[in-house]
C-alpha cells in the first residue's frame, strides 16, 4: 500500500514536473557572452540568437561578461541554477582551463553543450607598416630583433596564446606579449600601432584586411581560403605545421551540467535550427567562419578531440601550468 502510494505520488510529481518543463521557457533567458562586444563570439551569438528565439518562443537577453580568458563568464554561469535560464555563449577557451591553471572544469565536465555553431580560421595579421610581409620574413625579423615585436594576446589559453604555441613549436617566436580584453580591442590596438602582430581569427579581421588597414602575414591552415585569394597556407613554406592543422577556435552555446535533458534538447533544436537561417549562413560566409552544427554526444566528442590536440600543444610549448596527463587528457 505504502509502496503504491509512493509510486502514485512520484508519478504525479513526474507528470507535474513534465508539465512545468513543457512550458520552458516561461521567463526571460539570460545569455552570458564570454567575450567583449564587437568581438567574434559576440557577433556570432547576437546573429544566431534572434533566430533561435523564434524557434524557442522565448526571449534571450544577452550580456557581455568579459575577463579572465572567459573564466569570469563561465564561473558566473556555474553559480546560477541548472534550469536552462542562463546560457553561456562562449568560445573554445574553457577546454584549456585545466592545463592553463584557470580552473578545474571544462565544457565537458561542468556544462552541457546546447550547440556548437561554427569554427574560425586562425591567421596572423600585422600593421601594414611592419617590415615583414610573410611568416618566413617575420621569423627572420624576430631572430634579428629578439623580443622587439609586440604580439597582441588575450591572456594565457586564449586563441593568440595557442596559435603562438603552435608557431613556437616549429620556429623560434621571440616577442613581447601584450594582453587585451578580446580580439576586438587588440585589432584596434594593431591598427593604432600599439602592437605589431596579432594572431586572430580570420572573420574578426576580414573587413580591416579588405580595407588594407592591416595585412595578412600567415594563413594558419592547411588549405587556401576563399576569403583570402592569393594567400598561401602556412604549410606551404612550413610543412611541419601540417600535424596540428586544421585547427580553429569554435563558438558554442552551453548550459550548466545537470540542466534537465528536455530543456537542453529544446535549446539545441532552437539553436541548430536558428543556425540554418539564410542570413546567419550568409553572415558566417561573410565572416569566413565554417559551420559545425553539432549537439549532444557529437559535440562532446568534437570538443574532447580539440582539447587533446590543443592541451598537448601548449604543454609541449611549455606554457601549460599543469600537464594534461594530470587530468587524463590523452595525447592525440
Amino acid at each position: 500500500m505504502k509502496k503504491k502510494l509512493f509510486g502514485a505520488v512520484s508519478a504525479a510529481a513526474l507528470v507535474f514536473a513534465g508539465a512545468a518543463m513543457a512550458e520552458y521557457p516561461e521567463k526571460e533567458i539570460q545569455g552570458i557572452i564570454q567575450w567583449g562586444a564587437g568581438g567574434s563570439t559576440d557577433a556570432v551569438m547576437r546573429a544566431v540568437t534572434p533566430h533561435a528565439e523564434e524557434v524557442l518562443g522565448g526571449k534571450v537577453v544577452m550580456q557581455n561578461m568579459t575577463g579572465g580568458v572567459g573564466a569570469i563568464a563561465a564561473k558566473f554561469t556555474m553559480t546560477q541554477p541548472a534550469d536552462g535560464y542562463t546560457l553561456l555563449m562562449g568560445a573554445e577557451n574553457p577546454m584549456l582551463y585545466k592545463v592553463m591553471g584557470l580552473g578545474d572544469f571544462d565544457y565537458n565536465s561542468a556544462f552541457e553543450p546546447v550547440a556548437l555553431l561554427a569554427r574560425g580560421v586562425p591567421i596572423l595579421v600585422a600593421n601594414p607598416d611592419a617590415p615583414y610581409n610573410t611568416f618566413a620574413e617575420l621569423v627572420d625579423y624576430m631572430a634579428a630583433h629578439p623580443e622587439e615585436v609586440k604580439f597582441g594576446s588575450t591572456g594565457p589559453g586564449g586563441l593568440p596564446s595557442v596559435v603562438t604555441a603552435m608557431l613556437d613549436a616549429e620556429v623560434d617566436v621571440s616577442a613581447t606579449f601584450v594582453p587585451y580584453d578580446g580580439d576586438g580591442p587588440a585589432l584596434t590596438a594593431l591598427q593604432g600601432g600599439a602592437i605589431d602582430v596579432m594572431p586572430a581569427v580570420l572573420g574578426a579581421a576580414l573587413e580591416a584586411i579588405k580595407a588594407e588597414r592591416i595585412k595578412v602575414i600567415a594563413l594558419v591552415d592547411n588549405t587556401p581560403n576563399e576569403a583570402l585569394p592569393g594567400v598561401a597556407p602556412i604549410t606551404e613554406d612550413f610543412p611541419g605545421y601540417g600535424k596540428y592543422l586544421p585547427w580553429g577556435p569554435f563558438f558554442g552555446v552551453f548550459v550548466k551540467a545537470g540542466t534537465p535533458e528536455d530543456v537542453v534538447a529544446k535549446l539545441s533544436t532552437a539553436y541548430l535550427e536558428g543556425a540554418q537561417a539564410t542570413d546567419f549562413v550568409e553572415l558566417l560566409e561573410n565572416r569566413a567562419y565554417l559551420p559545425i552544427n553539432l549537439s549532444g554526444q557529437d559535440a562532446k566528442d568534437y570538443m574532447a578531440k580539440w582539447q587533446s590536440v590543443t592541451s598537448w600543444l601548449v604543454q609541449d610549448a611549455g606554457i601549460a601550468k599543469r600537464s594534461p596527463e594530470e587530468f587524463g587528457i590523452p595525447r592525440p
Partner: protein
Amino acid sequence: MDFQSFFMTFLDLRLMALVGAGTAAGIYIGAIPGLSVTMAVSILISFTFSWEMYDALALMIGIYMGGVYGGSRTAILLNIPGAPSAIATALDGYPLAKKGQAGEAIGLSTTMSALGGLIGIAVLGFAAPAVSEFAIRFQPRDYMLLAILGILLVGSLSGESLIKGVFAGALGLTIGCVGLDPLTAQERFTFGHIELWGGISFVAVMIGLFGVSEALMQLQHINTPAVKQKISRVIPSWKSVVKFLPLSIQSSSIGVIIGALPGTGGDIAALMAYDHAKRVTKDPEVPFGKGARAGLVAPETANNAAVGGAFIPMLTLGIPGDSVTAIIIGAMFIHGLNPGPMLMIERPEMFWFILGALVLATGFMLFFGLTGIRLFVKVVELPRAMLFPLILLLSIIGAFAVNNSLTDVYWMLGFGVLGYFMKLYGYQLGPVILGVILSRLIDDNWRRAIISEREDLGRLFHGIFTSPLSLVLFMAVVMIFFTSTPLWPMLKKRLRRKADPAPKA
C-alpha cells in the same frame, strides 16, 4: 547623392515616429537608475531582427540620444544619476533643485544637451575620418595618462579637504579592483567569495553613494517643508545660452574626443568637462558644488557630444566607440551589413542616414525635454516623508535591475550608509565614484604600457617623451598636479612681483 539619405528620417513618417518614440523611451530609460541604454539597445536587437534595418536603427538611435540625456533628470531632481554619464550633472544640478531652481536647471541642461549633441554630430559629419585616425593612435600609455589626468580631478571634487578627497579617491580605486583580475583571472580582494568574482557592481555603488546617502542625510530635516520650485522660467534665456556658448563648445570638444576613444565614454567625458569648467570659470555666480550653472552646462554638453563621438570610429572603421555603438555594430551585422572601414565606401548612404537620425533625435530630445518639466519638478515638492521612501524604493529597484541580483541591493544599501557617514565627516563622495570609474582604465593600461616596454621604466618614459600626444598628456598631468600644490600660488606671487617691480608711488 548619398547625402539624400540624411533626410530619410525627416521625410518618412514611420521612421520619424520611430525616432521620436525611441527618444521618448530613451529619456525614461535613462532617467531610471539601473536601466541603461546598453541594456535597452541589446534587448532591441532581438526584438527588431525581423524589421527593416532602417526602422531598427531609427529606434536604437532615438533611445541612445534620449537615454544619455535622460540620466540628468533624476540626477538633478533626486541626486540619483540615472546613468554614469550623469554623475557630474548631480554635483551642481541637485544643489540647484534644493534652492528651488529645478525647473531652470532641467531647462538649461536640456538646451545644452541638445547643443552638445549637435556639435558632436557636426564633428561626426565633417571630420569623422580625421578624428578616428587620431583616436586609434592612442596607445596604452596614453590611456594610462588620460586616466591619471582623470584621477587628478579628485583635486576639484574634494571640497574642503584635499586629504579627505585623496582618501575617498583611493577607496574608489580599491573598490574597482575587487574581483577576478581582467588580464590574468587572479582573484583580488574576493576573500574566497564567488559573489565577488565579478566585482562590485559600479551602478550599485553609484546609487548607494548618491541617492541613499542623500536620502539619509535629508531625514535629519524630515519636518522642514519642501522647497517651493520656481517654474516660471523653464526655457533658458537667449542671453544665458550665449553666455555659456564658449564653455559648451569647449566641453563638447572634450566630449567628442573622449567619446571617439574606443576605451572611454560619456561618464569620463562629463567628469573631465566638469573639471574643465571649474578651471576656466573665473567668477562663478555661486561656487561649484553649490549650484553653479557652469557645472551643469559642461557635463551635459560633453556627454551628449560623446554620442556623436562614439559613432566616429564605428562608422569609419567598424570599431565601437562605447558599449552602445558596439551593440549597434552587432545589429548591423545581423541586418546583413559589414561594419568596418569599407562601410563608408560600400554603403555611404548608411552614414548619412545615421547622421540624419541623430539630428532628428536631438530635436525630439529638446522637445520632450522641455515639455514635461512642470510636471517633473512637482516630484521635488512632495512632502519629505513621502519623497524619501520613494527614493529608497527607486534605488533598490535600480540596483536590482542591473544584474537581477539581490547582492547588488545589499551593496547599494551598504554604500548608502557608508556614504552617509562619509558626508557627515566631511568626505566628498565624488572622488569615490571617480576612483571606481577609472580603476580598470588605469590598471589595465598601466600594465599594458609597461608590459609592451618589456617592463622597463626607462623605455616607457622614452616612449612618452618621443610621442607628441603622450608628451602633451604627460605635460597636462604635470601641470594640473603642480597647480594643485601650494607651490603654485607662491610661484605665481613671485612672478607677479617680478613683472611688476615698481609699486605705485
